[in-house]
């Protein structure tokens, strides 16, 4: 049996985990079964997100590979934080329960309410909840009484940081000055922002740009085209209003952040700066794993635990199937329309908001591992085959890591926009060392109504490198104590 205890830092310090108290009951429970314990893995994480998709003890099947005649194996996944909180007796009881359920009904329906079939996590309905959150952000904020930015560490987005904006602009001026000296500076100077929020970042940037340009005697501001890009027309309109003072230089473009090239193909190789703040960590992602030398994709399945499902069906007076249908409708229609189409269930939008939050709070992910037969058939993103994962999967011991599919798609498509002297700057939560996946949990977690996954930085580095870009990471330098990292991508050579 392999026990993989990832957060080794939790074994020391002021409040070390009592591993015997959390692991002991699980091992005792396993010993009481007739499983071939040599094939069982026990993996321990410390899930730092208070709101997440895990239960204290989950059981995952590692699907066998028929081609090699290998059978299924088991992985017991332990969240040390939750397990420590419930204590040894409940740990034992939970471990007994998941093992009994596996023995008695390994693949059958349970009282848990499953909302979808197995599939790669990027296809899960949890991303539907994530999209709904951004679509109906105003309603969510009203229901919780808390603005999104207030929920961020530090109380505001780092994108608004004046010093960071000034640094980017100064770098840009240096590039433009050098090109102008060679008579190689185009007349039109394009800057693109992907994911514009309320427009305050753009305002800070444009105000600084104008001031710095004027201080130099002008010349660049009147040639500047700043493109606000977002998938939401509502958000774009809000942002456009915020930067109204710069209206002659700003255009608003509706686009999908994972495919910026579709809307901006006319800017291929023309953009000098693409700025992306806190977008990548919120885009759909799969996870892949290397277990015992073989590669797997993590398949997941969203569900409501039996207790949550029972509570909701009772409160709403619907069957389990009816509850599943209401959830699917909510994701399609949003809270306002939902109140209209189901007046017999919901008294109004406020009721729907309570429903949404209850479902979201209860939502969990069941997981299993499906073998990958070669990496190249697995598509990380359009035009990026799974071969890009090979150096990371083969970087050492067993590993489970994010694929950051949405971030990779956005990143790779954005690189095509960049002028030979252009730069991509992204502020986000990046894993910068592949070994970090062997030590620390990096998502998914719940952040308000959205999903947060740290972004696989080494993968972006490898993809950038293959496309001719040097990708570097630095801790965000303009605010201390933040987990935000600055990614910078520039053409190499």
């Amino acid at each position, binding site marked *: 049996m392999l026990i993989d205890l990832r957060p080794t830092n939790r074994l020391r310090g002021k409040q070390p985990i009592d591993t015997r108290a959390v692991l002991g009951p699980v091992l005792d429970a396993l010993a009481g079964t007739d499983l071939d314990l040599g094939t069982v893995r026990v993996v321990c994480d410390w899930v730092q997100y208070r709101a997440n998709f895990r239960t204290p003890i989950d059981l995952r099947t590692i699907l066998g590979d028929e081609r090699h005649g290998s059978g299924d194996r088991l992985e017991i996944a332990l969240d040390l934080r939750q397990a420590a909180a419930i204590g040894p007796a409940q740990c034992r009881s939970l471990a007994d329960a998941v093992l009994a359920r596996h023995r008695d009904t390994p693949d059958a329906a349970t009282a848990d309410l499953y909302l979808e079939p197995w599939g790669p996590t990027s296809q899960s309905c949890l991303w539907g909840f994530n999209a709904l959150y951004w679509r109906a952000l105003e309603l969510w904020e009203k229901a919780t009484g808390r603005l999104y930015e207030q929920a961020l560490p530090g109380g505001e987005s780092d994108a608004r940081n004046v010093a960071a904006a000034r640094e980017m602009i100064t770098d840009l001026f240096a590039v433009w000055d050098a090109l102008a000296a*060679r008579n*190689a500076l*185009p007349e039109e100077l394009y800057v693109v922002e992907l994911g514009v929020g309320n427009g305050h970042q753009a305002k800070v940037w444009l105000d600084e740009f104008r001031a710095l340009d004027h201080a130099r005697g002008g010349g660049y501001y009147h040639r500047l085209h700043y493109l606000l890009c977002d998938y939401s027309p509502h958000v774009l309109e809000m942002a456009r209003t915020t930067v109204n003072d710069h209206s002659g230089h700003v255009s608003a473009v509706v686009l999908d952040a994972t495919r910026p090239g579709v809307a901006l193909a006319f800017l291929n*190789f023309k953009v000098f700066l693409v700025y992306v703040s806190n977008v990548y960590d919120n885009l759909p992602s799969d996870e892949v794993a290397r277990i015992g030398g073989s590669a797997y994709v993590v398949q997941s399945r969203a569900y409501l635990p039996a207790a949550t499902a029972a509570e909701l069906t009772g409160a709403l007076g619907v069957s389990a199937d009816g509850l599943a249908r209401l959830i699917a409708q909510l994701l399609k229609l949003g809270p306002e329309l939902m109140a209209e189409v189901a007046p017999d269930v919901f008294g109004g939008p406020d009721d729907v908001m309570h429903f949404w939050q209850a479902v979201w709070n209860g939502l969990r992910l069941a997981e299993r591992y499906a073998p990958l037969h070669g990496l*190249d058939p697995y598509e990380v993103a359009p*035009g990026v*085959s799974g*071969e890009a994962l*090979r150096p990371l999967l083969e970087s050492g011991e067993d590993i489970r890591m994010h694929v950051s599919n949405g971030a990779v798609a956005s990143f790779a498509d954005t*690189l*095509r926009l960049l*002028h*030979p002297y252009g730069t991509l700057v992204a502020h986000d939560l990046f894993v910068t060392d592949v070994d970090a996946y062997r030590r620390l949990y990096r998502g998914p977690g719940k952040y308000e109504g959205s999903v947060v996954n740290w972004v696989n930085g080494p993968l972006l580095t490898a993809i950038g*490198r*293959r*496309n*001719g*870009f040097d990708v570097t990471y630095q801790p965000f330098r303009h605010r201390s104590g933040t987990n935000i990292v600055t990614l910078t991508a520039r*053409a190499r*050579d």
Partner: protein
Amino acid sequence: MTTPALLPTTVIGSYSVPDWLERARTDYHRGRISSVQLGSIHDVCVKAALKDQELAGIDIVSDGELRRDNDIDYVLARLPGVRIAPTTKDSAYDYFDAYVDAALPEDDPPELGLARDYAFASAHTDRPAKFSFTGPFSLSRRIHNHGYRQPADLVRAIARLLNAEMHALAAAGATILQIDEPFLAGYPDEAALAVEAVNIVTAGVNAQWSLHVCYGNRYARPSWEGHYDFLFPAVHKAEVDVLALEFARKGYDDLDLVTRAGWDRTIGLGVIDVKNTRVEPVDLIVARLRRALRLLPPERIQVNPDCGLRHLPTPIATAKLQVMVHATRLVRDEIDAHARGTDSGAANQEDRSE
């Protein structure tokens, strides 16, 4: 095979590199497979590339530069006096760090292996084979020069070493040779030096010579931007027969510029955008050729992609070549019909685009 007198089709040089070949090369650079195995893989790839070009109907084929990990290192690492440190790299596409610590030894220069590569390719096709290689100016830009006080002297020294190899190529039967200068567009003030070096390379070598200048195709991206005016008037002095240029991606305004500048020899007309995976429709290529025919007689046009096909997936690369050949045949037929007086003539027809 006889090469058509009008609008012969050719490639710039490199051919599509499949993912697995890239991985094999990277494995070689990391010491996971031997040079013998990699050489064997390359032999098979070159034969396949020749076959793909033949099936597409290309008149003048190439070995696809498939033995080369990128446009620089293959030649640079073989030049005597060039020190590479270290000789491993994470990706075959990455450039080595190359150093010249003293003047390059030019007496009795060793074979660089290019003639052997040509001989292998020509033995496996019945079509004329072009041999392309990166020119001295671009090679010099990737060298940390501590051996020459004047950087131009390093360029000239490399040119002399390449000239010796060109004689070996000619002895091996090569009759169509091409010098690529992918870095020149980034150093427009150096055009005269680059042309001087080109003439050193070509000196005394009896072949049809091409000079290919583009805006870079490293990782399927342009490295530079600008216009071809920087080539003139220096390029008039180049001892070459063909000037092969990039137009499809950037548009054909620069073709006017080149003809206005008085270029009186053949143009290698880029009609395929190699930085875009969309396969051009036939009528777009026809329109591009017709536009060129308004400025140049068909005897002075060679039809080729903008640059090498290295970064295109193989099915896309072959499809693009097939379209290029098909469009060229249509235009040749128009010209023939015009010559027989049965058509209004290609050059008088209106363009569809650009």
